[in-house]
Protein backbone atom coordinates (compact mmCIF):
# COMPACT_ATOMS: atom_id res chain seq x y z
CA UNK A 1 0.00 0.00 0.00
CA UNK A 2 1.33 3.38 -0.84
CA UNK A 3 0.32 6.63 0.69
CA UNK A 4 0.11 9.91 -1.08
CA UNK A 5 0.24 12.97 1.05
CA UNK A 6 -1.65 15.93 -0.25
CA UNK A 7 -0.21 19.26 0.57
CA UNK A 8 -2.39 22.27 0.18
CA UNK A 9 -5.59 23.90 -0.73
CA UNK A 10 -7.25 26.36 -2.96
CA UNK A 11 -10.62 27.84 -3.49
CA UNK A 12 -10.66 30.08 -6.46
CA UNK A 13 -13.63 32.36 -6.52
CA UNK A 14 -15.09 33.97 -9.55
CA UNK A 15 -16.83 31.59 -11.87
CA UNK A 16 -19.38 32.27 -14.53
CA UNK A 17 -17.98 34.38 -17.24
CA UNK A 18 -18.87 33.67 -20.77
CA UNK A 19 -21.71 34.51 -22.98
CA UNK A 20 -24.11 32.85 -25.35
CA UNK A 21 -23.76 32.22 -29.01
CA UNK A 22 -24.43 34.70 -31.75
CA UNK A 23 -23.84 32.55 -34.78
CA UNK A 24 -26.38 32.31 -37.52
CA UNK A 25 -29.40 30.28 -36.59
CA UNK A 26 -30.38 29.38 -40.11
CA UNK A 27 -27.78 27.42 -41.95
CA UNK A 28 -28.08 29.40 -45.14
CA UNK A 29 -31.64 30.08 -46.05
CA UNK A 30 -31.95 33.07 -48.34
CA UNK A 31 -35.58 33.87 -47.77
CA UNK A 32 -36.60 36.93 -45.85
CA UNK A 33 -40.24 37.74 -45.25
CA UNK A 34 -41.79 34.28 -45.03
CA UNK A 35 -39.72 33.25 -42.04
CA UNK A 36 -39.85 36.57 -40.27
CA UNK A 37 -41.58 35.14 -37.27
CA UNK A 38 -39.20 32.26 -37.07
CA UNK A 39 -36.27 34.64 -37.21
CA UNK A 40 -37.86 36.62 -34.41
CA UNK A 41 -38.03 33.44 -32.37
CA UNK A 42 -34.45 32.73 -33.22
CA UNK A 43 -33.45 36.20 -32.16
CA UNK A 44 -35.30 35.80 -28.90
CA UNK A 45 -33.40 32.60 -28.27
CA UNK A 46 -30.10 34.30 -28.99
CA UNK A 47 -30.97 37.23 -26.80
CA UNK A 48 -31.71 34.82 -24.02
CA UNK A 49 -28.54 32.81 -24.61
CA UNK A 50 -26.60 36.05 -24.57
CA UNK A 51 -27.64 36.57 -20.96
CA UNK A 52 -26.14 33.27 -19.96
CA UNK A 53 -22.49 33.14 -18.93
CA UNK A 54 -21.83 30.28 -21.32
CA UNK A 55 -23.67 27.50 -23.03
CA UNK A 56 -22.77 23.85 -23.31
CA UNK A 57 -24.43 21.39 -25.68
CA UNK A 58 -24.21 17.62 -25.80
CA UNK A 59 -25.94 15.92 -28.70
CA UNK A 60 -25.91 12.68 -30.61
CA UNK A 61 -23.88 12.77 -33.79
CA UNK A 62 -27.19 12.65 -35.66
CA UNK A 63 -28.37 15.87 -34.08
CA UNK A 64 -30.57 14.88 -31.14
CA UNK A 65 -29.95 17.03 -28.07
CA UNK A 66 -28.90 15.13 -24.97
CA UNK A 67 -27.89 17.83 -22.52
CA UNK A 68 -27.72 21.62 -22.32
CA UNK A 69 -26.41 23.26 -19.21
CA UNK A 70 -29.40 25.49 -18.87
CA UNK A 71 -32.24 23.03 -18.60
CA UNK A 72 -34.92 25.62 -19.16
CA UNK A 73 -33.66 26.14 -22.66
CA UNK A 74 -33.78 22.61 -23.83
CA UNK A 75 -36.83 23.13 -25.98
CA UNK A 76 -35.40 26.24 -27.52
CA UNK A 77 -32.11 24.69 -28.48
CA UNK A 78 -33.45 21.69 -30.35
CA UNK A 79 -32.89 23.41 -33.68
CA UNK A 80 -29.48 24.59 -32.58
CA UNK A 81 -28.50 20.99 -31.87
CA UNK A 82 -29.41 20.10 -35.44
CA UNK A 83 -27.37 23.04 -36.67
CA UNK A 84 -24.31 22.00 -34.63
CA UNK A 85 -24.69 18.51 -36.05
CA UNK A 86 -24.83 19.97 -39.56
CA UNK A 87 -21.63 21.99 -39.04
CA UNK A 88 -19.74 19.02 -37.67
CA UNK A 89 -20.92 16.51 -40.24
CA UNK A 90 -20.31 18.92 -43.11
CA UNK A 91 -16.67 19.27 -42.13
CA UNK A 92 -16.47 15.55 -41.64
CA UNK A 93 -17.69 15.02 -45.20
CA UNK A 94 -14.62 16.95 -46.33
CA UNK A 95 -12.44 14.50 -44.46
CA UNK A 96 -11.75 17.17 -41.89
CA UNK A 97 -12.95 17.82 -38.37
CA UNK A 98 -14.40 21.03 -37.04
CA UNK A 99 -12.65 22.28 -33.93
CA UNK A 100 -13.45 25.92 -33.37
CA UNK A 101 -15.42 28.81 -34.77
CA UNK A 102 -14.90 32.38 -33.72
CA UNK A 103 -17.30 35.22 -34.15
CA UNK A 104 -16.32 38.53 -32.63
CA UNK A 105 -16.02 37.76 -28.94
CA UNK A 106 -17.66 34.35 -29.04
CA UNK A 107 -15.58 31.21 -29.18
CA UNK A 108 -17.28 28.02 -30.16
CA UNK A 109 -15.47 24.79 -29.54
CA UNK A 110 -16.53 21.42 -30.92
CA UNK A 111 -15.56 17.91 -29.94
CA UNK A 112 -16.80 14.96 -31.93
CA UNK A 113 -16.39 11.71 -30.01
CA UNK A 114 -18.57 9.28 -31.86
CA UNK A 115 -21.43 8.74 -31.12
CA UNK A 116 -21.58 12.14 -29.39
CA UNK A 117 -20.88 15.75 -30.28
CA UNK A 118 -19.90 18.26 -27.59
CA UNK A 119 -20.01 22.00 -28.11
CA UNK A 120 -19.38 24.98 -25.86
CA UNK A 121 -19.97 28.63 -26.68
CA UNK A 122 -17.83 30.90 -24.56
CA UNK A 123 -16.51 34.40 -24.40
CA UNK A 124 -13.02 33.23 -23.53
CA UNK A 125 -11.11 30.83 -25.72
CA UNK A 126 -8.93 29.27 -23.02
CA UNK A 127 -8.99 25.51 -22.54
CA UNK A 128 -12.35 24.98 -24.18
CA UNK A 129 -11.06 21.76 -25.71
CA UNK A 130 -10.15 20.47 -22.27
CA UNK A 131 -13.53 21.46 -20.90
CA UNK A 132 -15.23 19.35 -23.53
CA UNK A 133 -12.89 16.41 -22.85
CA UNK A 134 -13.85 16.60 -19.18
CA UNK A 135 -17.52 16.47 -20.16
CA UNK A 136 -16.90 13.46 -22.36
CA UNK A 137 -15.17 11.68 -19.50
CA UNK A 138 -18.02 12.63 -17.18
CA UNK A 139 -20.46 10.88 -19.52
CA UNK A 140 -18.11 7.90 -19.79
CA UNK A 141 -18.06 7.60 -16.01
CA UNK A 142 -21.79 6.94 -16.11
CA UNK A 143 -21.99 4.61 -19.11
CA UNK A 144 -18.36 3.66 -19.92
CA UNK A 145 -16.93 4.38 -23.32
CA UNK A 146 -17.64 0.90 -24.62
CA UNK A 147 -21.31 0.96 -23.62
CA UNK A 148 -21.62 4.41 -25.11
CA UNK A 149 -20.18 3.23 -28.41
CA UNK A 150 -22.53 0.25 -28.51
CA UNK A 151 -25.78 1.80 -27.39
CA UNK A 152 -26.75 3.27 -30.78
CA UNK A 153 -25.73 0.09 -32.57
CA UNK A 154 -28.01 -1.91 -30.31
CA UNK A 155 -30.93 0.46 -29.99
CA UNK A 156 -30.82 2.27 -33.32
CA UNK A 157 -29.47 5.63 -34.45
CA UNK A 158 -32.62 7.40 -33.29
CA UNK A 159 -32.20 6.26 -29.69
CA UNK A 160 -32.73 8.99 -27.12
CA UNK A 161 -29.68 8.70 -24.86
CA UNK A 162 -31.35 10.89 -22.23
CA UNK A 163 -33.22 7.78 -21.15
CA UNK A 164 -29.99 6.11 -20.07
CA UNK A 165 -28.63 9.28 -18.50
CA UNK A 166 -31.81 10.05 -16.61
CA UNK A 167 -31.04 11.51 -13.21
CA UNK A 168 -27.44 12.34 -14.01
CA UNK A 169 -27.99 15.86 -15.36
CA UNK A 170 -27.10 17.13 -11.91
CA UNK A 171 -23.68 15.51 -12.10
CA UNK A 172 -23.00 16.96 -15.51
CA UNK A 173 -24.16 20.37 -14.30
CA UNK A 174 -21.97 20.26 -11.20
CA UNK A 175 -19.01 19.09 -13.25
CA UNK A 176 -19.44 22.14 -15.45
CA UNK A 177 -19.79 24.48 -12.48
CA UNK A 178 -16.74 23.03 -10.82
CA UNK A 179 -14.49 23.54 -13.79
CA UNK A 180 -15.87 26.99 -14.17
CA UNK A 181 -15.23 27.73 -10.50
CA UNK A 182 -11.75 26.22 -10.18
CA UNK A 183 -10.18 26.12 -13.60
CA UNK A 184 -6.83 25.18 -12.11
CA UNK A 185 -8.06 21.62 -11.56
CA UNK A 186 -9.16 21.42 -15.13
CA UNK A 187 -6.30 23.18 -16.79
CA UNK A 188 -3.55 21.22 -15.13
CA UNK A 189 -5.49 18.06 -14.42
CA UNK A 190 -4.82 18.65 -10.78
CA UNK A 191 -6.38 17.87 -7.44
CA UNK A 192 -6.81 20.34 -4.65
CA UNK A 193 -5.69 19.17 -1.25
CA UNK A 194 -7.38 20.41 1.91
CA UNK A 195 -4.97 22.06 4.38
CA UNK A 196 -4.19 19.91 7.42
CA UNK A 197 -1.39 19.46 9.93
CA UNK A 198 1.19 17.17 8.33
CA UNK A 199 1.09 14.86 11.37
CA UNK A 200 -2.69 14.60 11.25
CA UNK A 201 -2.60 13.82 7.58
CA UNK A 202 0.08 11.23 8.19
CA UNK A 203 -2.10 9.56 10.80
CA UNK A 204 -5.12 9.63 8.51
CA UNK A 205 -3.24 8.17 5.55
CA UNK A 206 -1.52 5.45 7.52
CA UNK A 207 -4.76 4.45 9.23
CA UNK A 208 -6.49 4.13 5.88
CA UNK A 209 -3.55 2.24 4.38
CA UNK A 210 -3.20 -0.23 7.24
CA UNK A 211 -6.94 -0.96 7.39
CA UNK A 212 -7.13 -1.54 3.65
CA UNK A 213 -3.95 -3.60 3.64
CA UNK A 214 -5.11 -5.77 6.55
CA UNK A 215 -8.40 -6.58 4.82
CA UNK A 216 -6.49 -8.32 2.01
CA UNK A 217 -9.26 -7.66 -0.48
CA UNK A 218 -7.78 -8.50 -3.85
CA UNK A 219 -9.07 -5.82 -6.20
CA UNK A 220 -9.75 -3.10 -3.63
CA UNK A 221 -7.31 -0.59 -5.03
CA UNK A 222 -7.91 2.90 -3.73
CA UNK A 223 -9.05 4.67 -0.59
CA UNK A 224 -9.76 8.40 -0.64
CA UNK A 225 -10.92 10.86 2.00
CA UNK A 226 -12.67 13.84 0.42
CA UNK A 227 -14.03 17.04 1.94
CA UNK A 228 -15.22 20.27 0.36
CA UNK A 229 -14.30 19.06 -3.15
CA UNK A 230 -10.72 18.57 -2.01
CA UNK A 231 -8.80 15.54 -0.91
CA UNK A 232 -7.58 15.00 2.63
CA UNK A 233 -5.77 11.73 1.93
CA UNK A 234 -5.40 9.11 -0.75
CA UNK A 235 -4.00 5.62 -0.43
CA UNK A 236 -3.42 3.19 -3.26
CA UNK A 237 -1.80 -0.08 -4.11
CA UNK A 238 1.65 0.46 -5.44
CA UNK A 239 1.05 -0.74 -8.98
CA UNK A 240 -2.00 1.37 -9.58
CA UNK A 241 -2.37 5.06 -10.17
CA UNK A 242 -5.53 7.12 -10.26
CA UNK A 243 -5.47 10.00 -12.72
CA UNK A 244 -6.44 13.45 -11.41
CA UNK A 245 -9.20 13.63 -14.00
CA UNK A 246 -10.69 10.41 -12.63
CA UNK A 247 -10.30 11.70 -9.11
CA UNK A 248 -12.19 14.85 -10.06
CA UNK A 249 -15.02 12.68 -11.41
CA UNK A 250 -15.20 10.95 -8.03
CA UNK A 251 -15.07 14.24 -6.17
CA UNK A 252 -17.89 15.48 -8.32
CA UNK A 253 -19.94 12.36 -7.59
CA UNK A 254 -19.53 12.44 -3.81
CA UNK A 255 -20.26 16.16 -3.68
CA UNK A 256 -23.77 15.41 -4.91
CA UNK A 257 -25.98 16.28 -1.96
CA UNK A 258 -28.45 13.45 -2.57
CA UNK A 259 -25.77 10.95 -1.58
CA UNK A 260 -24.88 12.76 1.61
CA UNK A 261 -26.76 10.83 4.23
CA UNK A 262 -25.60 8.39 6.85
CA UNK A 263 -26.47 5.60 4.46
CA UNK A 264 -23.80 3.69 2.62
CA UNK A 265 -23.67 3.83 -1.14
CA UNK A 266 -22.41 1.19 -3.55
CA UNK A 267 -22.05 2.87 -6.91
CA UNK A 268 -20.67 1.43 -10.13
CA UNK A 269 -18.51 4.05 -11.74
CA UNK A 270 -16.25 4.01 -14.76
CA UNK A 271 -13.02 5.97 -14.36
CA UNK A 272 -12.10 6.41 -18.01
CA UNK A 273 -8.46 7.35 -17.54
CA UNK A 274 -7.92 4.16 -15.59
CA UNK A 275 -10.06 1.91 -17.77
CA UNK A 276 -12.75 3.17 -20.12
CA UNK A 277 -14.51 -0.14 -20.65
CA UNK A 278 -15.06 -1.43 -17.14
CA UNK A 279 -16.54 -0.24 -13.87
CA UNK A 280 -15.19 0.27 -10.43
CA UNK A 281 -17.48 -0.21 -7.47
CA UNK A 282 -17.31 2.72 -5.14
CA UNK A 283 -18.19 2.24 -1.50
CA UNK A 284 -19.14 5.77 -0.53
CA UNK A 285 -19.95 6.82 3.01
CA UNK A 286 -20.14 10.00 5.03
CA UNK A 287 -19.21 8.59 8.43
CA UNK A 288 -19.81 11.78 10.36
CA UNK A 289 -22.75 13.13 8.44
CA UNK A 290 -25.52 12.47 10.95
CA UNK A 291 -27.59 14.08 13.67
CA UNK A 292 -24.87 14.36 16.27
CA UNK A 293 -21.97 15.37 14.08
CA UNK A 294 -21.63 17.43 10.99
CA UNK A 295 -18.18 16.72 9.65
CA UNK A 296 -18.47 16.97 5.87
CA UNK A 297 -15.93 14.28 5.07
CA UNK A 298 -16.52 11.46 2.65
CA UNK A 299 -14.69 8.15 2.60
CA UNK A 300 -14.51 6.42 -0.78
CA UNK A 301 -13.18 2.89 -1.15
CA UNK A 302 -12.78 1.65 -4.70
CA UNK A 303 -12.76 -1.96 -5.79
CA UNK A 304 -12.99 -3.70 -9.13
CA UNK A 305 -14.97 -6.50 -7.49
CA UNK A 306 -18.71 -6.41 -7.35
CA UNK A 307 -18.88 -8.58 -4.23
CA UNK A 308 -16.61 -6.45 -2.06
CA UNK A 309 -19.39 -4.48 -0.39
CA UNK A 310 -19.27 -6.33 2.92
CA UNK A 311 -15.48 -6.41 2.97
CA UNK A 312 -15.23 -2.67 2.38
CA UNK A 313 -17.93 -2.01 4.92
CA UNK A 314 -15.66 -3.65 7.48
CA UNK A 315 -12.66 -1.61 6.25
CA UNK A 316 -14.69 1.52 6.69
CA UNK A 317 -15.64 0.45 10.20
CA UNK A 318 -11.97 -0.12 11.08
CA UNK A 319 -10.88 3.24 9.68
CA UNK A 320 -13.66 5.20 11.37
CA UNK A 321 -13.09 3.55 14.72
CA UNK A 322 -9.34 4.16 14.68
CA UNK A 323 -9.77 7.77 13.66
CA UNK A 324 -12.39 8.48 16.31
CA UNK A 325 -10.34 6.79 19.02
CA UNK A 326 -7.57 9.32 18.50
CA UNK A 327 -9.44 12.24 19.97
CA UNK A 328 -6.71 14.81 19.40
CA UNK A 329 -6.54 13.87 15.73
CA UNK A 330 -10.30 13.76 15.39
CA UNK A 331 -10.77 17.24 16.84
CA UNK A 332 -8.16 18.69 14.50
CA UNK A 333 -9.50 16.78 11.53
CA UNK A 334 -13.09 17.87 12.15
CA UNK A 335 -11.93 21.46 12.41
CA UNK A 336 -9.84 21.23 9.24
CA UNK A 337 -12.62 19.88 7.05
CA UNK A 338 -15.37 21.99 8.56
CA UNK A 339 -13.63 25.30 8.12
CA UNK A 340 -10.59 24.84 5.91
CA UNK A 341 -7.98 27.55 6.22
CA UNK A 342 -6.24 28.72 3.12
CA UNK A 343 -2.47 28.60 3.12
CA UNK A 344 -0.75 31.74 4.32
CA UNK A 345 2.03 33.48 2.51
CA UNK A 346 4.07 33.36 5.71
CA UNK A 347 4.08 29.58 5.43
CA UNK A 348 6.52 29.67 2.54
CA UNK A 349 8.88 31.87 4.49
CA UNK A 350 8.63 34.96 2.36
CA UNK A 351 8.09 38.32 3.91
CA UNK A 352 8.27 40.13 0.63
CA UNK A 353 5.76 42.95 0.44
CA UNK A 354 5.28 42.35 -3.25
CA UNK A 355 4.19 38.71 -2.91
CA UNK A 356 0.43 38.73 -2.83
CA UNK A 357 -0.48 35.12 -3.37
CA UNK A 358 1.08 31.83 -4.32
CA UNK A 359 -0.04 28.71 -6.06
CA UNK A 360 1.94 25.50 -5.87
CA UNK A 361 1.45 22.58 -8.21
CA UNK A 362 3.31 19.38 -7.54
CA UNK A 363 4.04 17.91 -10.93
CA UNK A 364 4.36 14.31 -9.92
CA UNK A 365 1.33 14.10 -7.61
CA UNK A 366 -0.71 16.68 -9.58
CA UNK A 367 -1.75 18.18 -6.27
CA UNK A 368 -2.21 21.87 -6.00
CA UNK A 369 -2.35 24.32 -3.13
CA UNK A 370 -3.01 28.00 -3.15
CA UNK A 371 -2.64 30.73 -0.60
CA UNK A 372 -5.18 33.27 0.45
CA UNK A 373 -4.44 36.57 -1.17
CA UNK A 374 -2.86 39.23 0.94
Amino acid at each position, binding site marked *: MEVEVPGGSEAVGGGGTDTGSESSFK*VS*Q*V*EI*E*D*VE*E*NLKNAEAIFEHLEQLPFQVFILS*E*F*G*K*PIFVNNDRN*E*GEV*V*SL*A*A*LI*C*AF*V*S*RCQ*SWGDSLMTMTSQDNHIQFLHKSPLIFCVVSKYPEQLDQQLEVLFEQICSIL*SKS*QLENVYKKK*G*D*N*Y*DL*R*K*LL*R*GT*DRLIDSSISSWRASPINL*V*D*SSISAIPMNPSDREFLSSTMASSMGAAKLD*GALFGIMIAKRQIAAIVRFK*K*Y*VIHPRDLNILINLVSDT*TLQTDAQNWV*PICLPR*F*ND*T*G*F*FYAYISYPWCNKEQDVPACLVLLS*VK*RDHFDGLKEVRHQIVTKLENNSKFFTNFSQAVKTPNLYQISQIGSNSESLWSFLYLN*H*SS*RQVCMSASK
Partner: protein
Amino acid sequence: MSGTRKKALLKVIILGDSGVGKTSLMNQYVNRRFSNQYKATIGADFLTRDVNIDDRTVTLQIWDTAGQERFQSLGVAFYRGADCCVLAFDVTNAASFKSLDSWRDEFLIQASPRDPDHFPFVLLGNKVDLESQRAVSSKRAQSWCQTKGNIPYYEVSAKEALNVEAAFLAIARDALARESQETNDFPEFPDQIRLNPNQQNQQNSGCNC
Protein backbone atom coordinates in the same frame (compact mmCIF):
# COMPACT_ATOMS: atom_id res chain seq x y z
CA MET B 1 -32.48 10.23 -8.91
CA SER B 2 -34.92 12.69 -10.35
CA GLY B 3 -37.78 10.95 -12.05
CA THR B 4 -38.78 13.85 -14.23
CA ARG B 5 -39.64 12.60 -17.64
CA LYS B 6 -38.27 14.76 -20.39
CA LYS B 7 -40.30 15.67 -23.39
CA ALA B 8 -39.91 13.06 -26.07
CA LEU B 9 -37.98 14.31 -29.06
CA LEU B 10 -38.59 13.12 -32.59
CA LYS B 11 -36.32 13.80 -35.52
CA VAL B 12 -38.46 14.25 -38.59
CA ILE B 13 -36.97 14.74 -42.03
CA ILE B 14 -38.74 15.99 -45.13
CA LEU B 15 -37.71 14.73 -48.55
CA GLY B 16 -39.01 15.37 -52.03
CA ASP B 17 -38.20 17.06 -55.32
CA SER B 18 -37.22 20.66 -55.50
CA GLY B 19 -40.24 22.97 -55.56
CA VAL B 20 -42.84 20.58 -54.16
CA GLY B 21 -43.21 22.83 -51.13
CA LYS B 22 -41.22 21.19 -48.35
CA THR B 23 -40.10 24.47 -46.83
CA SER B 24 -43.58 25.94 -47.26
CA LEU B 25 -45.16 23.00 -45.48
CA MET B 26 -42.74 23.36 -42.65
CA ASN B 27 -43.25 27.10 -42.39
CA GLN B 28 -46.98 26.63 -42.44
CA TYR B 29 -46.73 24.07 -39.70
CA VAL B 30 -44.23 25.83 -37.48
CA ASN B 31 -44.91 29.50 -38.20
CA ARG B 32 -48.39 29.34 -39.69
CA ARG B 33 -47.26 31.34 -42.66
CA PHE B 34 -47.21 30.93 -46.37
CA SER B 35 -45.39 32.83 -49.06
CA ASN B 36 -45.85 32.46 -52.79
CA GLN B 37 -42.29 33.46 -53.32
CA TYR B 38 -40.03 30.53 -54.03
CA LYS B 39 -36.53 30.36 -52.69
CA ALA B 40 -34.43 27.27 -52.88
CA THR B 41 -33.23 25.86 -49.60
CA ILE B 42 -29.49 25.74 -49.52
CA GLY B 43 -28.25 22.81 -47.55
CA ALA B 44 -30.76 22.36 -44.81
CA ASP B 45 -33.05 24.20 -42.48
CA PHE B 46 -34.14 23.24 -38.99
CA LEU B 47 -37.31 24.06 -37.14
CA THR B 48 -38.90 22.92 -33.92
CA ARG B 49 -42.44 22.57 -32.73
CA ASP B 50 -44.05 21.00 -29.69
CA VAL B 51 -47.21 18.93 -30.04
CA ASN B 52 -49.40 17.33 -27.42
CA ILE B 53 -50.25 13.71 -27.89
CA ASP B 54 -52.54 12.25 -25.28
CA ASP B 55 -50.82 13.29 -22.07
CA ARG B 56 -47.34 13.76 -23.50
CA THR B 57 -45.62 16.72 -25.03
CA VAL B 58 -43.48 15.80 -27.96
CA THR B 59 -40.90 18.05 -29.59
CA LEU B 60 -40.63 17.65 -33.32
CA GLN B 61 -37.19 18.52 -34.63
CA ILE B 62 -37.90 19.03 -38.31
CA TRP B 63 -35.04 18.78 -40.77
CA ASP B 64 -35.89 20.38 -44.08
CA THR B 65 -33.49 19.41 -46.80
CA ALA B 66 -32.65 20.95 -50.12
CA GLY B 67 -34.50 19.17 -52.91
CA GLN B 68 -31.97 20.36 -55.43
CA GLU B 69 -29.17 17.88 -55.74
CA ARG B 70 -26.47 20.48 -56.03
CA PHE B 71 -27.24 21.63 -52.50
CA GLN B 72 -27.26 18.20 -50.95
CA SER B 73 -24.26 18.01 -48.76
CA LEU B 74 -25.15 16.88 -45.30
CA GLY B 75 -24.82 13.21 -46.06
CA VAL B 76 -25.65 10.47 -43.64
CA ALA B 77 -25.86 12.65 -40.53
CA PHE B 78 -28.94 14.21 -42.08
CA TYR B 79 -30.74 10.92 -42.63
CA ARG B 80 -29.50 8.83 -39.74
CA GLY B 81 -31.21 8.90 -36.40
CA ALA B 82 -34.52 9.97 -37.96
CA ASP B 83 -37.68 8.81 -36.22
CA CYS B 84 -39.87 9.52 -39.18
CA CYS B 85 -39.49 10.46 -42.83
CA VAL B 86 -41.98 12.71 -44.60
CA LEU B 87 -42.06 12.26 -48.36
CA ALA B 88 -43.57 15.19 -50.21
CA PHE B 89 -44.69 15.63 -53.82
CA ASP B 90 -46.62 18.20 -55.79
CA VAL B 91 -50.02 16.93 -57.01
CA THR B 92 -49.72 19.19 -60.05
CA ASN B 93 -46.32 17.76 -60.98
CA ALA B 94 -46.27 14.11 -62.09
CA ALA B 95 -42.49 14.00 -62.18
CA SER B 96 -42.28 14.81 -58.49
CA PHE B 97 -44.55 11.84 -57.83
CA LYS B 98 -42.37 9.54 -59.92
CA SER B 99 -39.33 10.55 -57.88
CA LEU B 100 -40.86 9.26 -54.66
CA ASP B 101 -39.40 5.79 -55.17
CA SER B 102 -35.90 7.11 -55.42
CA TRP B 103 -36.35 9.42 -52.41
CA ARG B 104 -37.60 6.52 -50.34
CA ASP B 105 -34.76 4.27 -51.51
CA GLU B 106 -32.24 7.01 -50.90
CA PHE B 107 -33.51 7.42 -47.37
CA LEU B 108 -33.43 3.71 -46.58
CA ILE B 109 -29.90 3.36 -47.93
CA GLN B 110 -28.48 6.41 -46.21
CA ALA B 111 -30.31 6.09 -42.90
CA SER B 112 -30.10 2.29 -42.77
CA PRO B 113 -32.80 2.08 -40.10
CA ARG B 114 -32.99 -1.08 -38.03
CA ASP B 115 -36.31 -2.23 -39.43
CA PRO B 116 -36.51 -0.79 -42.97
CA ASP B 117 -39.75 -2.61 -43.86
CA HIS B 118 -41.62 -0.95 -41.04
CA PHE B 119 -39.89 2.42 -40.85
CA PRO B 120 -42.51 5.19 -40.42
CA PHE B 121 -42.95 7.14 -43.63
CA VAL B 122 -45.72 9.58 -44.38
CA LEU B 123 -46.65 10.80 -47.83
CA LEU B 124 -47.86 14.35 -48.36
CA GLY B 125 -49.39 15.43 -51.66
CA ASN B 126 -49.06 19.21 -51.59
CA LYS B 127 -50.74 22.01 -53.55
CA VAL B 128 -54.25 20.49 -53.57
CA ASP B 129 -55.50 24.08 -53.72
CA LEU B 130 -54.52 23.98 -57.40
CA GLU B 131 -57.15 21.32 -58.17
CA SER B 132 -57.56 22.37 -61.80
CA GLN B 133 -53.90 21.63 -62.49
CA ARG B 134 -53.85 18.27 -60.72
CA ALA B 135 -51.67 15.70 -62.47
CA VAL B 136 -51.64 12.95 -59.85
CA SER B 137 -54.93 11.53 -58.64
CA SER B 138 -55.54 10.74 -55.02
CA LYS B 139 -56.17 7.15 -55.97
CA ARG B 140 -52.83 6.82 -57.70
CA ALA B 141 -51.02 8.18 -54.68
CA GLN B 142 -52.89 5.89 -52.35
CA SER B 143 -52.11 2.81 -54.36
CA TRP B 144 -48.42 3.73 -54.31
CA CYS B 145 -48.66 3.96 -50.54
CA GLN B 146 -50.23 0.51 -50.38
CA THR B 147 -47.34 -1.05 -52.24
CA LYS B 148 -44.93 0.46 -49.72
CA GLY B 149 -46.47 -1.13 -46.67
CA ASN B 150 -49.46 1.14 -46.21
CA ILE B 151 -47.79 4.47 -45.78
CA PRO B 152 -50.37 7.02 -44.55
CA TYR B 153 -51.26 9.54 -47.26
CA TYR B 154 -52.44 13.10 -46.72
CA GLU B 155 -53.46 15.62 -49.32
CA VAL B 156 -52.40 18.98 -48.05
CA SER B 157 -52.07 22.60 -49.00
CA ALA B 158 -49.34 24.62 -47.39
CA LYS B 159 -50.98 27.69 -48.91
CA GLU B 160 -54.39 27.11 -47.37
CA ALA B 161 -53.10 25.35 -44.29
CA LEU B 162 -55.24 22.40 -45.30
CA ASN B 163 -54.58 19.16 -43.44
CA VAL B 164 -51.04 20.21 -42.55
CA GLU B 165 -51.69 20.15 -38.84
CA ALA B 166 -53.42 16.76 -39.00
CA ALA B 167 -50.65 15.25 -41.08
CA PHE B 168 -47.89 16.27 -38.69
CA LEU B 169 -49.93 15.11 -35.72
CA ALA B 170 -50.29 11.69 -37.31
CA ILE B 171 -46.57 11.65 -37.98
CA ALA B 172 -45.78 12.36 -34.36
CA ARG B 173 -48.28 9.84 -33.07
CA ASP B 174 -46.92 7.09 -35.25
CA ALA B 175 -43.28 7.74 -34.42
CA LEU B 176 -44.04 8.06 -30.72
CA ALA B 177 -45.83 4.72 -30.71
CA ARG B 178 -42.71 3.09 -32.12
CA GLU B 179 -40.45 4.91 -29.75
CA SER B 180 -42.33 3.71 -26.69
CA GLN B 181 -42.10 0.08 -27.82
CA GLU B 182 -38.53 0.15 -26.64
CA THR B 183 -38.90 -0.58 -22.97
CA ASN B 184 -35.48 -1.64 -21.78
CA ASP B 185 -33.73 1.57 -20.95
CA PHE B 186 -31.49 0.25 -18.25
CA PRO B 187 -27.78 0.18 -18.80
CA GLU B 188 -26.31 -3.22 -19.36
CA PHE B 189 -24.74 -5.05 -16.51
CA PRO B 190 -21.47 -3.21 -16.03
CA ASP B 191 -18.32 -4.83 -17.34
CA GLN B 192 -15.75 -5.73 -14.78
CA ILE B 193 -12.26 -4.30 -14.89
CA ARG B 194 -9.64 -6.93 -15.49
CA LEU B 195 -6.49 -5.87 -13.78
CA ASN B 196 -3.28 -6.21 -15.64
CA PRO B 197 -0.61 -4.70 -13.43
CA ASN B 198 1.90 -4.52 -16.26
CA GLN B 199 -0.22 -2.09 -18.20
CA GLN B 200 -0.87 0.18 -15.28
CA ASN B 201 1.39 2.42 -13.35
CA GLN B 202 1.91 4.91 -16.11
CA GLN B 203 1.30 8.23 -14.57
CA ASN B 204 0.25 10.13 -17.61
CA SER B 205 0.27 13.65 -16.49
CA GLY B 206 -0.95 16.19 -18.96
CA CYS B 207 1.08 19.33 -18.73
CA ASN B 208 4.79 19.66 -18.43
CA CYS B 209 5.14 23.35 -18.27
